[in-house]
């Protein structure tokens, strides 16, 4: 009896959801003459986005704290601790990429410049892990300044669902990029950690912001997305980059992008773009 009532309520909710979506679509159509995503009503995502924001801020803050430790250990010439702090600082940073790459691209470039750059994670990586030296104080100061600015942006920037879905899709695509040459953080040997934390960031953003809304519209689609993210995680479980089946990873990454693109209209968003232009 209770189940039936639950099912009935759920059906009604789903129907309402469909109507609301249709209505949203119609309004968008009238208002802007196209499915411009950021003009779609975002009310249904507001609470979810604020939940995500608190997780995002925590990630960037953790990265800032690690870079503070990096600064201190560099100052005292403690190379081992400095390296550890660098590795830890990457965790929150890579998890936050759904946000950083699209909402603060210039800052993102300074922090994560590659292959070189006057400052940023990889300039410090070359000295700490490559040359085995800790004379990177000025670069660490600059990184700290940029990361603190990023933390402020994470708190203040208006986060749109479209921008976040774009960020998710771009990151899903990036996960499938070839790491055969050793990957982005090859000097420290942590390229695999980077990808793993990217996928954690994808999972966090998807679960917090979009999962409920998609589930409401299409439980199967939501299940597929969850399954695909889980699959990516298990593919990345080995501890050595050499053990990763990069072909399967690439296919899984592209399948996930396709599925985000499929989900977009279900939640009244435009098909996510794969490059911020």
């Amino acid at each position, binding site marked *: 009896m209770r189940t039936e009532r639950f099912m009935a309520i759920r059906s009604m909710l789903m129907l309402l959801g469909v109507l609301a979506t249709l209505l949203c679509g119609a309004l968008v159509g009238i208002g802007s003459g196209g499915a411009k995503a950021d003009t779609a009503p975002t009310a249904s995502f507001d609470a979810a986005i604020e939940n995500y924001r608190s997780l995002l801020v925590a990630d960037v803050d953790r990265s800032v704290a690690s870079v503070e430790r990096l600064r201190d250990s560099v100052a005292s010439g403690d190379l081992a601790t400095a390296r550890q702090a660098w590795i830890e600082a990457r965790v929150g940073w890579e998890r936050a990429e759904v946000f950083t790459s699209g909402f603060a691209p210039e800052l993102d470039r300074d922090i*994560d410049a590659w292959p070189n750059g006057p400052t940023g994670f990889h300039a410090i990586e070359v000295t700490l892990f490559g040359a085995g030296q800790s004379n990177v104080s000025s670069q660490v100061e600059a990184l700290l300044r940029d990361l603190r600015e990023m933390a402020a942006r994470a708190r203040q920037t208006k986060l749109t669902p479209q921008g976040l879905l774009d960020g998710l899709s771009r990151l899903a695509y990036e996960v499938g990029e070839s790491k055969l*040459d050793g990957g982005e953080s090859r000097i420290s040997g942590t390229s695999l950690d980077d990808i793993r934390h990217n996928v954690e960031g994808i999972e966090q953003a998807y679960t917090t912001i979009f999962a409920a809304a998609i589930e409401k519209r299409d439980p199967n689609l939501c299940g597929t997305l969850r399954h695909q993210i889980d699959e990516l995680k298990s593919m990345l479980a080995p501890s050595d980059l050499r053990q990763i089946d990069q072909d399967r990873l690439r296919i899984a990454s592209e399948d996930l992008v396709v599925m985000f693109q499929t989900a977009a209209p279900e939640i009244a968003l435009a098909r996510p773009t794969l490059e911020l232009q």
Partner: protein
Amino acid sequence: MTRRVVFAVAISLFGLPLFGSAGAFPLSGDQTVLPPGTELNEDAMYRPTEVFHSEARGGFKSYQVDLGDLAFNSPNLLGGPARRAGMSCGTCHVNGAGNARLYVPGMSTRPGNFDTTGPLFNPKAHNGVLDPVRIPSLRGARFLAPYGHDGRIASLRDFVRNVVVNEFAGDEPSPAILDALVAYIEDIDFLQNTSLDSRGHLTTQASEAERRGEAIFARPFSHDPTMSCAGCHIPSEGFVDHKQHNVGSGGLFKTPTLLNADFNAPYFHDGRFDRLDQVVEHFDRTYDLALTPQDRADLTAYLVAVGDGLLPLDREGVTARIKEINDFATVLEIAIPAHDIAVIDLAVDTIGRELRDLTEQFPDRRDPTVTDGLRERLAARAILKDTVILFRRIDAAARAGRFDEAAAQFAIYRKLSFVALPQVLSNAQQWSLFNPRVHRAHYAALWENLRQAGKLPRTLAAPAAPMAENAAKPVAAEH
């Protein structure tokens, strides 16, 4: 995984002895499938020109040839570490030619050779001896039976299967794929050589030295009049006799062709010689030919004339890349209506890899080595990524049995490939790694990182620019 050419050419071309002789694709770090210091020559700016027999006669490549080309460039044809490292037949035989820079520590004794029975790629074929062989060019292979440096396999089909299954631990290829690989290889022509007529004799444009060399080439050896250079390298027969001989290099090896040899260094089965004059010296010594210095110079001039070819190298760029991808994509015109999932998978996989590789030629915003043209670069990246996903949709639709949808998606690609794709990529080309200046800046930064990290590949015992590569006349013309 198909971009690798003669980096030395790029260096000599632009006068940039940037990295000494060790110019290479930075395959580095401690977590790469192939040993640190491996050089696949992936960042080369020139690739060997590929001349197809079918096209040269005014026709077009058949479905089989394109399918073979696809399989040839797919790591999935191989197995084990080669596949995991993203290597394909095309890694060593770039555009069906060779790869004079390829070097795998432990498997090569010098750039351009490779131990096909070493421990790395298939333990079952490992023979406990470091006996690398030169990577041969496949140009004109249909005229060059038997196959293998020792000529132990009569049929090209058997030889290809052996390379795939035994040397590189691949799964047994389907008969259709083997047929396609053979069709592809047999369609690769020698480069045209205007120095030779149809009987393999020098034409009127030859120099005096080359003519004297031709005479020496045909002259009986003084100590054994039954022998001459031309006795084995028969000019009218593609400069081969289809037989094995012991010429003092450590065993019986088949007579290699001399056609296009200018671009096939290093020489001999193990690649022991960098230059043709060293080859001449070897024969002079081994057969006691008593050649004068003038004779040796003349004979070398003749070999260079015989080994020449028109337009040996293709400049890397948007046009060449798109043509290759389009050629690969043509197999879908038959495979989708035929519901041939295996071929659709193969095509999508290889094309997707090529498109992703092409995307990385357009640096994104994080790369400080190039600052201009950001909008154009990002537009190029965007359309390439969208195309990757388009092909993924084709594969997904086909796998789900929705072949009409797959065909519709493929039609979208065809439209894109006519105008939008070439246009958007061409607009960004000057700020891409296809521009030598950008290429230099980007790789110099990478190399500087690796230098600081002490992770440069160990110095390779390679000549900075083998003679054959310097002799690449059309390159100079392009410059």
